[in-house]
């Protein structure tokens, strides 16, 4: 989809040390795609509503416009209360996860890094399971539990990693993340055993869901805005970090501090996404790679394009989840992996030899 951009680019990926220019062309194409997918997301769904009626209804919602879409109040309600917030939530969550993934990959200089690398998923999984199993009355507080768990998991890994690796290396941090993930997952499985009857709820949370309504959109937006803003301004710093800590130091960049801030922002983005949607896999690791393949390696363009690409990808995945076996639904995590993996392989083959 961004192939023309890729072939027409002037930026040699090898020269990524140089601060690259942002790419307005790629940004525009990305935004246009996102808009198209979001409109498709609004038009499609299990409820049988004609596309033109949806268009009229959306026009009716606009200020100063009054059109009669001919939809019954129940249908208007489901468009406004269910479908619209669902498309928006998918966009926000997808954008957050992809951008967080790009941030992690930049910090760790590791292509396998994803938003869950430092124990965010395991931490959120544990606290959500605890909330569901041990405090079943607290169902509305699931987002809070997930958020606390995601942040807690990352802090645990970061604390352990920093304590173990004196020279601030990222390898110990990754290993600490692996250890924390295993440990927290073990505890989560144990708690799950205590509450077998809640298994389906835990499982369905793990596979992800973006159907939370406006409430979840409102919950996630402030965190999304802060995390996205912080990550955006660190694009150039991440480019500099890519050449190595010592060289970065020579250029006046304090590597450890940049890493900490980016990790903090990416973890905040991950925690916010996990809190409102559960554990949706694959978006965070793959979208940044696709973006990098298609539009070059500079984080100044990878970060904003990941935001847009992640949003596009998840809105599309959710549209599929909602329509493939309508009126039944697939868990969105199944779609992201089932559709995402072959797509990723296709992009890898298509761009073989053209990027890092």
């Amino acid at each position, binding site marked *: 989809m961004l192939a023309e951009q890729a072939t027409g680019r002037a930026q040699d990926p090898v020269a990524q040390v140089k601060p690259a220019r942002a790419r307005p062309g790629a940004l525009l194409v990305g935004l246009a795609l996102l808009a198209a997918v979001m409109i498709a997301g609004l038009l499609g*769904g*299990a*409820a*049988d*509503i004609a596309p033109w009626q949806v268009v009229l209804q959306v026009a009716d919602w606009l200020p100063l416009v009054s059109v009669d879409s001919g939809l019954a*109040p*129940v*249908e208007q*309600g*489901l468009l*406004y*209360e*269910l*479908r619209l*917030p669902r498309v928006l939530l998918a966009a926000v969550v997808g954008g957050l996860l992809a951008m967080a993934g790009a941030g992690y990959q930049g910090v760790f200089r590791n292509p396998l890094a994803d938003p869950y690398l430092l124990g965010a998923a395991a931490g959120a999984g544990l606290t959500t399971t605890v909330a569901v199993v041990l405090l*079943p*009355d607290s*169902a509305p507080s699931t987002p809070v539990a997930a958020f606390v768990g995601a942040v807690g998991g990352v802090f645990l890994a970061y604390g352990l990693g920093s304590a173990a690796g004196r020279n601030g290396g990222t390898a110990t941090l990754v290993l600490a993340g692996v250890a924390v993930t295993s440990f927290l997952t073990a505890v989560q499985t144990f708690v799950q*055993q205590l509450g*077998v*009857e*809640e298994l*389906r*709820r835990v499982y*369905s949370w793990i596979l992800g*869901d973006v*159907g939370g*309504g*406006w*409430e979840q959109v409102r919950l996630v937006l402030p965190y999304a805005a802060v995390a996205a803003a912080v990550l955006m301004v660190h694009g150039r710093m991440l480019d500099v970090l890519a050449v190595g800590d010592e060289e970065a130091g020579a250029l006046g960049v304090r590597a450890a501090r940049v890493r900490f801030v980016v990790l903090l922002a990416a973890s905040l983005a991950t925690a916010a996404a996990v809190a409102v949607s559960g554990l949706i896999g694959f978006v965070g690791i793959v979208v940044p790679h696709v973006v990098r393949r298609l539009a070059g390696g500079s984080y100044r363009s990878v970060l904003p394009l990941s935001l847009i690409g992640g949003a596009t990808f998840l809105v599309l995945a959710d549209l599929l989840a*909602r329509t493939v*076996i*309508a*009126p*039944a*639904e*697939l*868990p969105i995590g199944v779609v992201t992996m089932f559709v995402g993996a072959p797509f990723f392989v296709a992009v890898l083959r298509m761009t073989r030899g053209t990027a890092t």
Partner: protein
Amino acid sequence: MRPVRKALAGALLGTLLLAGCGQTGTTANPAPATSQTATAETGAGFPVTVEAANGKVTIEKKPERIVSLSSVHTESLFAIGAGPQVIAVDDQSNYPPEAPRTELSGFKPNVEAIVAQKPDLVVVSDDIDHVVAELTKVNVPVLHEPAAETLDEAYQEILDLGTATGNLAKAEEVVDGMKTALDELAAGAAAGKGLTYYHELDETPYSLTSKTFIGQIYALFGLTNIADEAPDAAGGYPKLSAEFIAQADPDLIFLADVKCCRQNKETLAQRPGWKNLTAVKKDRVIELDDDIASRWGPRVVDLAKAIGDAVAKTASE
């Protein structure tokens, strides 16, 4: 699951004696059985052979130390008067209250812990972690009676338990009672024709189709399940789209996630886009007992009664 003829005849003979011994069989109510005095006589009916999901199981003498690892079968055992023979049930067996609940798990069965109870019969509904094979290896008879897919299968499982525990007469009584009760309920609720319903398993929202056991109970009342529109690929327990449910606007909503997920009429009305649903506005949201609405035991009659009441109430509006 069909008992072998000869054994059946023997068991019948034994339990007829038992029934003659002043057992006033009444309803499906799991009253503590009074069969202990009759133990000596019923011992004559054994050995019996029962054909369960794990093949033919031969039980040499009347079991007196039964372990149930399935909440459904615990209910059935107590309903057919085998309660006094049951020494331990799993942690999910919450009915009847007098069932000897233990830490044993049917979900993650620990064979050593089960054997430590010195059981002479173990009843399971799921063969998890090879529990059936391992118990069989140490010569503990196991009856594997999996989730019933039809009412007939559910009846047969109760009869199997009756045969295996020496309570066949009472089991037949229970089954006949269930059949009669269900027939009466269904006959009195012809008004269900044309009504649609949505049965909720959890708030995400998972539902079930008419092909499932519970779905067949609804079908007795002529109700139409909105989940049946889901393609077969979605299985018997599809995760429905919230917007589809809103548009389908079912006449009746049955909640089977009252205990598990704390759902009720109020939480339903607060869901995005659901407050204008007919069932919500007209107070046709029925809060079921999660356990009754998921088990294929004798209490399925209670479920049918809840459905019948809701249908009658709606028809009289």
